[in-house]
């Protein structure tokens, strides 16, 4: 992979080349005259040298990184050695991204990379069950079963475990994108304004150790509940405020 411009790379984009969000970030950086270098996950892992000795810890090169899950999307490996090497690359990149001094979005922590968090992980009531006996079907439950089918509770059959939560069919939804200390609401709908979603979104992102995420809120007149935190937002979630979000991402990477 080579730098997009003649300038030495200043930001590494760790993603598949066709990742739409990564493409937009790359373009935004280049428009700011910042060099960009693209790497897949394994390519990025092989870039780094991590040394630990009596002087402490060094990661080189130490460059800002924008990281997407697509970096690791590869053809399934049937060869055990190839699968092992993939794990070695992942473990190395995890350490480099966690330990380097430069900005990383999203920076993995000691527990790894935060994945998509749904209602239960965000503090909302959720049921994990096998067999729907004992769950009163009042028409408000929505499930996802072990085959990833979603639908009302009546969809559950006794052979497949599922997760369920109550859904308010009359609720509205709002998306708030968080970048560092900034939060961008998708809409200016007055029905969501009273719920202080930007501040609550920043708090949620901080508690879950993510610096860049799209948080979806279920909004009713009396309350707004977080139902999804996506640390790898797609363009559908960003498009409402894409200019502001891209600006904030560039600022965060170049801080």
């Amino acid at each position: 992979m080579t730098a997009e411009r003649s300038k030495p790379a200043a930001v590494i984009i760790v993603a598949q080349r066709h990742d739409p969000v990564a493409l937009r970030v790359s373009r935004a950086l280049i428009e700011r005259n910042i060099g960009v270098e693209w790497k897949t996950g394994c390519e990025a892992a092989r870039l780094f040298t991590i040394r630990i000795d009596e002087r402490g810890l060094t990661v080189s090169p130490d460059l800002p990184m924008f990281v997407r899950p697509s970096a690791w999307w590869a053809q399934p490996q049937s060869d055990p050695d190839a699968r092992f090497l993939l794990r070695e690359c992942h473990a190395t990149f995890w350490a480099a991204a966690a330990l380097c001094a430069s900005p990383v979005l999203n920076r993995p922590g000691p527990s790894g990379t935060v994945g998509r968090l749904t209602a239960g992980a965000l503090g909302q009531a959720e049921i994990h069950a096998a067999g729907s006996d004992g769950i009163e079907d009042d028409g408000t439950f929505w499930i996802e079963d072990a085959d990833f089918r979603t639908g009302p509770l009546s969809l559950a059959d006794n052979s497949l475990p599922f997760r369920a939560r109550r859904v308010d069919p009359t609720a509205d939804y709002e998306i708030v994108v968080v970048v560092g200390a900034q939060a961008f609401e998708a809409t200016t709908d007055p029905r969501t304004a009273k719920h202080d979603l930007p501040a609550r979104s920043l708090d949620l992102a901080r508690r879950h150790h993510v610096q860049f995420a799209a948080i979806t809120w279920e909004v009713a007149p009396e309350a707004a509940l977080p139902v999804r935190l996506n640390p790898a937002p797609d363009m559908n979630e960003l498009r409402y405020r894409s200019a502001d979000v891209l600006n904030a991402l560039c600022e965060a990477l170049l801080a």
Partner: protein
Amino acid sequence: MIVAIGVDVDDTFATFVRVAVSTGTPIRLVNIRAAVTGDWRFDLPPTDGAKLFHADGDIVLDPNDSYFCRLIDLSAASDLASAGRWRALLAALRAWIEAVPGRVVNRPLGGVHNGSKPLHEALLLGAGLRVPPSLTSSDPAELRAFAREGLTISKTVCGTRAHTATVTPDDFTDFDPESGPVHLQRQIVGDDARIHVVGEHVIMHVALAGAVDYRRAGAIRTMTQREPPAALKDALIAATPMIGLAFAGWDFKIDADGTYWCLEANPMPGYGPYDAICDGAISRSLLKYLEHAS
């Protein structure tokens, strides 16, 4: 109440249960291999009890109890239908156990950084422990230079159990970076120590020097129990929760000067063989730790 959740074919789980029974400690058991065949319900947040219904009997888990967990995933050894049930039940158990307020030994997310050795070693360094110098790289020049600086061993980056081998600079003469990354560590020659820490309880076993990896050399059986230095004991009692664990199996090398070099902290250690040497002392420490909360 202490609740033990694991699989009956896991020796370490069986060891814990056996010692609990022999000491007359009240304990409830969940055998995941049986539970996966039945029904279950876990409500999050865990304000109410979780329920498991299967042929061995119905169980209600109280979120305020203490938990000893060894959540081992046997889905890969199951047929397709059962594999889905294994994954779903383990996902439910992990989410519920992570959220319960009481004492838990072997929390699902505890110590996962052991799956990236350079990250793990950095955390150990940050916890104030002495760690052998190491290098993780795909650069042949860097790897050769490190190997030239002293006795060197090669380990996996991701922590997959493999033969730990000594390496020389010549091993990297024709090294292809596409074969990397590689994790090298300075070899410490000396005795091996395994120190199990749970709460304030610290139990050390030492194997005399002779192997790069004493576990593969079958030396566990020859280990002797010893008292660790007081300063190290205090350091490990503080470091264990600092790295996110309630219970850890710490591996050290003791060099000729008597310096303890920390190799790793094993989360969810398979402590059974060590427990056999000290007549169940590790299991009894675990039970005391969990009973204290109950």
